[in-house]
């Protein structure tokens, strides 16, 4: 079976890669492009550790085929900071100790950014339900929710 | 003279004695004397036993001194998660 040639945009950069038909976007990011920030916690869309944005929609990269990336715009955790300037969500996750083992953190950050881009002033309940697809086994979510609330406030400039 | 208490499983290897009087200055000496008196204890004392001295559990420390009149308790070692 011949490989599929794909042209796409990742974190603003034009990227071309070859992949097999059955490879997922997560496989491509991690194994072919060296972008290992998205993690595979389940491979079935149940944990959110591989959260990325595809054309502005939050998705699990494990449930997207690599070939589907053709012509699309993909954003990953690696593109979240602007050079050495962290995104306010990243800063607040650090300040609130919103991570312990940290393996779920990239997925949470990508998902939380998608939330705040769409809804700058979410309630605690809205945050919790939006992030329900991101599993964390260490923190009990408390400090994560607080970090998102605090980042939202900072981003609103209040 | 220390009073050494054994858990039920360990007592089975020591002629079913639950309490033993032993003169020992540290854990190493305690183990040596126990082995002499109850050869059945030797394999478990090697790796499987922790010593509680006045309620504080020591797992690996032969040099730990046994205070006079200390309460000594031998139990199987712990692990955790």
């Amino acid at each position, binding site marked *: 079976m011949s490989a599929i040639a794909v042209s796409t945009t990742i974190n603003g950069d034009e990227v071309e890669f070859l992949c097999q038909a059955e490879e997922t976007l997560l496989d491509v990011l991690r194994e072919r492009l060296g972008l290992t920030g998205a993690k595979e916690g389940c491979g079935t869309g149940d944990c959110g550790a591989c959260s990325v944005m595809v054309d502005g929609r*939050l998705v699990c990269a*494990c449930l997207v*085929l690599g070939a*589907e990336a053709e012509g699309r715009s993909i954003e990953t955790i690696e593109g979240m900071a602007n050079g050495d300037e962290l995104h306010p969500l990243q800063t607040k996750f650090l300040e609130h100790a919103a991570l312990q083992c940290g393996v779920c953190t990239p997925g949470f950050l990508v998902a939380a950014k998608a939330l705040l881009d769409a809804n700058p002033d979410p309630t605690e309940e809205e945050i919790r339900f*939006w992030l*329900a697809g991101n599993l964390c086994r260490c923190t009990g979510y408390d400090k994560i929710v607080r970090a998102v609330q605090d980042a939202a406030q900072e981003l609103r400039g209040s | 003279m220390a009073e050494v208490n054994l858990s039920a499983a360990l007592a089975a290897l020591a002629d079913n004695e639950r309490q033993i009087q032993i003169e020992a200055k540290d854990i190493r000496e305690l183990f040596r004397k126990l082995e002499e008196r109850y050869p059945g204890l030797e394999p478990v004392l090697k790796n499987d036993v922790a010593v509680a001295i006045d309620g504080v559990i020591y797992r690996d420390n032969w040099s730990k001194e046994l205070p006079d009149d200390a309460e000594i308790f031998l139990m199987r070692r712990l692990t955790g998660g």
Partner: protein
Amino acid sequence: MQYERPKSLMDAASLLAGAKGSAYALAGGTDLLVIMKNDDFDAELVVDIKSIEGLDEIRETSEAYTVGAAVSCAALGESTMLKEAWPGVVEAANLIGSTQIQGRCTVAGNLCNASPAADSVPALVAAGAKAIIVGPNGNRTIPVEEIPVAPGKTSLEKGEIVEAIQLDKRAPQSGDAYLRFIPRTEMDIAVVGVAVSLSLDDKGLVTSARVALGAVAPTVLLVEPAAEAIIGTKLDDAALERLADVCSAACQPIDDKRGTIEFRKKVSGVLARRAARIAFDRAGGK
């Protein structure tokens, strides 16, 4: 496995029709990619239908709305028009999986996956929704409840694709609602799902109703006696009790990892009562 991304529905249909081995249409992929993980999975062809013009659109005509097969449930949830007309359908579609799943999954895919526990299907059935099907032998439009025939099996012929889901415009004083039971608050497959759609007359009496149950039988059930239990009433306590009893009796559930027979019977009645109440309120009932 071969991956194709045709530009037209006819190309998609003929690709699928021409496949010798197993072939799958890929819309949201939130079910297909999960089964692809299975070591036993084997497919000759996957046809990605998302590049087909117009399939990602929600359209309005004078009589109906059509939801294209590639419209993600997240996009559906952003449609003010549909939220006003069919709030129960939209809330059911928005209960499928997580925010991430919402970004990909589609109601057409949810229907064609033919799971008895699919969240959007009871709401579509209660809404009287229709599936617009294209295929090598022409087009047809059928009620959505005729598509799933057994868990994982549909009535679609080889090469047939659901192009869109059609929802009729509503009479005034109508409302719908969907409730499901899951052990967590999110990220679960329905243990029981109940959808109610109803219309009221000027006096506030229920004139027509459709009640559908999910996850309590091999396919989603349209329970006609349940509708009869509330037609002609203002959803008084006696009517709601009758509705609950009828729904519990209509269930043919199994014991499995998600719930017991007894639990599913009892809770389908409870949810039917609660969903009917919400639909009634939405219809402006008092």
